[in-house]
Protein backbone atom coordinates (compact mmCIF):
# COMPACT_ATOMS: atom_id res chain seq x y z
CA UNK A 1 0.00 0.00 0.00
CA UNK A 2 1.19 3.52 -0.76
CA UNK A 3 1.49 6.09 2.00
CA UNK A 4 -1.69 7.89 0.84
CA UNK A 5 -3.70 4.68 1.17
CA UNK A 6 -2.20 4.15 4.58
CA UNK A 7 -3.31 7.56 5.79
CA UNK A 8 -7.00 7.02 4.97
CA UNK A 9 -7.09 3.50 6.37
CA UNK A 10 -8.49 4.64 9.77
CA UNK A 11 -11.45 6.15 7.88
CA UNK A 12 -12.24 2.79 6.26
CA UNK A 13 -11.75 1.03 9.54
CA UNK A 14 -14.05 3.47 11.33
CA UNK A 15 -16.76 2.97 8.70
CA UNK A 16 -16.26 -0.81 8.95
CA UNK A 17 -16.70 -0.65 12.69
CA UNK A 18 -19.74 1.66 12.61
CA UNK A 19 -21.30 -0.49 9.88
CA UNK A 20 -20.66 -3.60 11.95
CA UNK A 21 -22.51 -2.12 14.92
CA UNK A 22 -25.46 -1.02 12.77
CA UNK A 23 -25.61 -4.41 11.06
CA UNK A 24 -25.39 -6.29 14.36
CA UNK A 25 -28.14 -4.34 16.13
CA UNK A 26 -30.55 -3.56 13.29
CA UNK A 27 -30.23 -5.90 10.30
CA UNK A 28 -31.71 -9.15 11.74
CA UNK A 29 -35.03 -7.54 12.74
CA UNK A 30 -35.33 -5.89 9.31
CA UNK A 31 -34.75 -9.23 7.57
CA UNK A 32 -37.54 -10.68 9.73
CA UNK A 33 -39.93 -7.81 8.91
CA UNK A 34 -39.20 -7.14 5.22
CA UNK A 35 -37.66 -10.40 4.05
CA UNK A 36 -39.97 -12.87 5.79
CA UNK A 37 -43.00 -11.49 7.67
CA UNK A 38 -44.19 -9.20 4.89
CA UNK A 39 -43.72 -11.53 1.89
CA UNK A 40 -45.30 -14.38 3.87
CA UNK A 41 -48.33 -12.21 4.59
CA UNK A 42 -47.91 -12.01 8.38
CA UNK A 43 -47.82 -8.21 8.08
CA UNK A 44 -49.84 -6.22 5.50
CA UNK A 45 -47.84 -4.59 2.68
CA UNK A 46 -49.24 -1.06 3.09
CA UNK A 47 -45.94 0.22 4.43
CA UNK A 48 -44.68 2.34 1.53
CA UNK A 49 -45.86 5.60 3.10
CA UNK A 50 -43.74 5.03 6.18
CA UNK A 51 -40.54 5.56 4.16
CA UNK A 52 -41.52 9.15 3.36
CA UNK A 53 -41.02 10.49 6.88
CA UNK A 54 -37.80 12.59 7.11
CA UNK A 55 -36.62 10.85 10.30
CA UNK A 56 -37.27 7.43 8.74
CA UNK A 57 -35.19 8.50 5.72
CA UNK A 58 -32.22 9.40 7.93
CA UNK A 59 -32.66 6.10 9.74
CA UNK A 60 -32.76 4.19 6.43
CA UNK A 61 -29.62 5.98 5.24
CA UNK A 62 -27.70 4.83 8.34
CA UNK A 63 -29.22 1.35 8.16
CA UNK A 64 -28.32 0.77 4.50
CA UNK A 65 -25.18 2.81 3.80
CA UNK A 66 -22.97 2.05 6.82
CA UNK A 67 -23.08 -1.78 6.61
CA UNK A 68 -21.98 -1.51 2.96
CA UNK A 69 -18.60 -0.24 4.22
CA UNK A 70 -18.59 -3.10 6.68
CA UNK A 71 -19.07 -5.46 3.72
CA UNK A 72 -16.36 -3.70 1.68
CA UNK A 73 -13.75 -4.04 4.43
CA UNK A 74 -14.54 -7.64 5.27
CA UNK A 75 -14.90 -8.79 1.68
CA UNK A 76 -11.61 -7.16 0.67
CA UNK A 77 -9.66 -8.93 3.41
CA UNK A 78 -11.54 -12.22 3.01
CA UNK A 79 -10.86 -12.46 -0.71
CA UNK A 80 -7.20 -11.67 0.06
CA UNK A 81 -7.15 -14.38 2.73
CA UNK A 82 -8.73 -16.89 0.38
CA UNK A 83 -5.69 -16.62 -1.89
CA UNK A 84 -7.77 -16.54 -5.04
CA UNK A 85 -5.09 -14.54 -6.80
CA UNK A 86 -7.24 -11.43 -7.17
CA UNK A 87 -4.93 -8.39 -7.42
CA UNK A 88 -5.28 -6.09 -4.40
CA UNK A 89 -5.61 -2.77 -6.17
CA UNK A 90 -8.62 -3.61 -8.37
CA UNK A 91 -10.17 -5.58 -5.50
CA UNK A 92 -9.96 -2.60 -3.16
CA UNK A 93 -11.37 -0.37 -5.89
CA UNK A 94 -14.28 -2.80 -6.40
CA UNK A 95 -15.06 -3.17 -2.67
CA UNK A 96 -14.73 0.39 -1.39
CA UNK A 97 -15.91 1.82 -4.71
CA UNK A 98 -18.92 -0.49 -4.53
CA UNK A 99 -19.77 0.80 -1.06
CA UNK A 100 -19.51 4.40 -2.29
CA UNK A 101 -21.75 3.61 -5.29
CA UNK A 102 -24.21 1.97 -2.88
CA UNK A 103 -24.19 5.07 -0.69
CA UNK A 104 -24.92 7.32 -3.67
CA UNK A 105 -27.72 4.96 -4.77
CA UNK A 106 -29.19 5.01 -1.26
CA UNK A 107 -29.16 8.82 -1.14
CA UNK A 108 -30.70 8.97 -4.63
CA UNK A 109 -33.53 6.55 -3.72
CA UNK A 110 -34.24 8.33 -0.43
CA UNK A 111 -34.41 11.70 -2.23
CA UNK A 112 -36.98 10.25 -4.68
CA UNK A 113 -39.37 9.54 -1.80
Amino acid at each position, binding site marked *: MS*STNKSIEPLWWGLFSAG*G*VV*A*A*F*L*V*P*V*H*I*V*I*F*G*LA*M*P*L*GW*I*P*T*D*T*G*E*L*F*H*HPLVKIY*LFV*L*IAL*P*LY*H*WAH*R*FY*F*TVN*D*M*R*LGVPRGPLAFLCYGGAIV*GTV*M*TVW*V*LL*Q*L
Partner: protein
Amino acid sequence: MNGTAVRPDKSKLYYPKMPRMWWLQKWAYLLFMLRELSSVFIAVFLIVFLVQIYQSTKGPEAYAAFVQKLSSPGWISFHIVALLFAVYHSVTWFESTAVILPLRLGERSVPRNLVFALILGAWIAVSAAVLILFLSLRG
Protein backbone atom coordinates in the same frame (compact mmCIF):
# COMPACT_ATOMS: atom_id res chain seq x y z
CA MET B 1 11.22 11.07 12.28
CA ASN B 2 11.85 9.99 8.75
CA GLY B 3 8.73 10.75 6.70
CA THR B 4 9.49 8.22 4.01
CA ALA B 5 9.07 5.11 6.12
CA VAL B 6 11.80 2.50 5.95
CA ARG B 7 10.51 -0.26 3.71
CA PRO B 8 11.75 -3.77 4.33
CA ASP B 9 13.58 -5.50 1.53
CA LYS B 10 10.85 -7.58 -0.11
CA SER B 11 13.21 -10.41 -0.98
CA LYS B 12 13.94 -10.85 2.73
CA LEU B 13 10.31 -10.95 3.85
CA TYR B 14 8.82 -14.23 4.94
CA TYR B 15 5.69 -15.29 3.10
CA PRO B 16 4.03 -18.28 4.76
CA LYS B 17 2.90 -20.83 2.21
CA MET B 18 -0.74 -21.63 2.73
CA PRO B 19 -2.84 -24.02 0.71
CA ARG B 20 -5.66 -22.35 -1.17
CA MET B 21 -8.29 -24.19 0.87
CA TRP B 22 -6.64 -23.52 4.25
CA TRP B 23 -9.96 -22.37 5.68
CA LEU B 24 -11.44 -25.85 5.22
CA GLN B 25 -8.76 -27.47 7.39
CA LYS B 26 -10.16 -26.56 10.77
CA TRP B 27 -13.67 -25.96 12.08
CA ALA B 28 -12.51 -22.67 13.62
CA TYR B 29 -11.13 -21.46 10.29
CA LEU B 30 -14.39 -22.33 8.56
CA LEU B 31 -16.41 -20.47 11.20
CA PHE B 32 -14.11 -17.47 10.69
CA MET B 33 -14.76 -17.58 6.95
CA LEU B 34 -18.53 -17.90 7.46
CA ARG B 35 -18.44 -14.92 9.81
CA GLU B 36 -16.62 -12.85 7.19
CA LEU B 37 -19.08 -13.97 4.49
CA SER B 38 -22.04 -12.90 6.65
CA SER B 39 -21.32 -9.37 5.43
CA VAL B 40 -22.11 -10.46 1.85
CA PHE B 41 -25.58 -11.70 2.81
CA ILE B 42 -26.21 -8.57 4.87
CA ALA B 43 -25.18 -6.35 1.94
CA VAL B 44 -27.35 -8.27 -0.56
CA PHE B 45 -30.34 -8.02 1.79
CA LEU B 46 -29.83 -4.25 2.15
CA ILE B 47 -29.66 -3.76 -1.63
CA VAL B 48 -32.88 -5.77 -2.09
CA PHE B 49 -34.43 -3.68 0.70
CA LEU B 50 -33.32 -0.51 -1.09
CA VAL B 51 -35.01 -1.74 -4.27
CA GLN B 52 -38.16 -2.38 -2.23
CA ILE B 53 -38.03 1.18 -0.87
CA TYR B 54 -37.54 2.46 -4.42
CA GLN B 55 -40.69 0.58 -5.53
CA SER B 56 -42.70 2.62 -3.04
CA THR B 57 -41.93 5.75 -5.13
CA LYS B 58 -43.90 4.15 -7.99
CA GLY B 59 -47.04 3.72 -5.94
CA PRO B 60 -48.60 1.13 -3.63
CA GLU B 61 -49.30 -1.35 -6.47
CA ALA B 62 -45.67 -1.53 -7.58
CA TYR B 63 -44.64 -1.88 -3.95
CA ALA B 64 -47.10 -4.71 -3.29
CA ALA B 65 -46.05 -6.44 -6.51
CA PHE B 66 -42.41 -6.36 -5.40
CA VAL B 67 -43.29 -7.80 -1.99
CA GLN B 68 -45.26 -10.48 -3.85
CA LYS B 69 -42.09 -11.34 -5.80
CA LEU B 70 -40.22 -11.79 -2.53
CA SER B 71 -42.72 -14.47 -1.48
CA SER B 72 -41.24 -16.95 -3.97
CA PRO B 73 -39.53 -19.99 -2.37
CA GLY B 74 -36.16 -18.80 -3.67
CA TRP B 75 -36.37 -15.41 -1.99
CA ILE B 76 -37.81 -16.84 1.23
CA SER B 77 -34.91 -19.34 1.35
CA PHE B 78 -32.45 -16.52 0.70
CA HIS B 79 -33.89 -14.44 3.53
CA ILE B 80 -33.82 -17.40 5.95
CA VAL B 81 -30.14 -17.99 5.15
CA ALA B 82 -29.45 -14.23 5.32
CA LEU B 83 -31.14 -14.08 8.73
CA LEU B 84 -28.96 -16.94 10.05
CA PHE B 85 -25.83 -15.18 8.77
CA ALA B 86 -26.99 -11.83 10.19
CA VAL B 87 -27.64 -13.34 13.62
CA TYR B 88 -24.22 -15.01 13.45
CA HIS B 89 -22.67 -11.62 12.70
CA SER B 90 -24.57 -10.04 15.62
CA VAL B 91 -23.52 -12.69 18.15
CA THR B 92 -19.85 -12.72 17.08
CA TRP B 93 -19.79 -8.91 16.92
CA PHE B 94 -21.15 -8.62 20.46
CA GLU B 95 -18.67 -11.24 21.67
CA SER B 96 -15.78 -9.17 20.36
CA THR B 97 -17.36 -5.94 21.66
CA ALA B 98 -17.37 -7.47 25.14
CA VAL B 99 -13.62 -8.09 24.73
CA ILE B 100 -12.79 -4.68 23.23
CA LEU B 101 -14.90 -2.58 25.60
CA PRO B 102 -14.54 -3.99 29.10
CA LEU B 103 -16.99 -2.50 31.60
CA ARG B 104 -15.79 -1.30 34.99
CA LEU B 105 -17.84 -0.69 38.08
CA GLY B 106 -15.61 1.20 40.49
CA GLU B 107 -12.58 -0.98 41.17
CA ARG B 108 -14.03 -4.16 39.76
CA SER B 109 -14.35 -5.08 36.13
CA VAL B 110 -17.61 -6.62 35.05
CA PRO B 111 -17.16 -10.25 33.92
CA ARG B 112 -16.94 -10.56 30.13
CA ASN B 113 -19.87 -12.97 29.97
CA LEU B 114 -22.06 -10.46 31.79
CA VAL B 115 -21.05 -7.66 29.38
CA PHE B 116 -21.90 -9.98 26.50
CA ALA B 117 -25.27 -10.83 28.08
CA LEU B 118 -26.02 -7.11 28.59
CA ILE B 119 -25.28 -6.34 24.93
CA LEU B 120 -27.42 -9.31 23.84
CA GLY B 121 -30.24 -7.93 26.00
CA ALA B 122 -29.82 -4.48 24.44
CA TRP B 123 -29.95 -6.06 20.96
CA ILE B 124 -33.20 -7.90 21.76
CA ALA B 125 -34.68 -4.69 23.23
CA VAL B 126 -33.67 -2.66 20.13
CA SER B 127 -35.10 -5.34 17.81
CA ALA B 128 -38.38 -5.44 19.75
CA ALA B 129 -38.53 -1.62 19.73
CA VAL B 130 -38.05 -1.51 15.94
CA LEU B 131 -40.75 -4.13 15.45
CA ILE B 132 -43.24 -2.39 17.78
CA LEU B 133 -42.47 1.04 16.29
CA PHE B 134 -42.89 -0.34 12.78
CA LEU B 135 -46.21 -2.02 13.59
CA SER B 136 -47.59 1.06 15.35
CA LEU B 137 -46.43 3.64 12.77
CA ARG B 138 -47.71 1.57 9.87
CA GLY B 139 -51.37 2.10 10.73
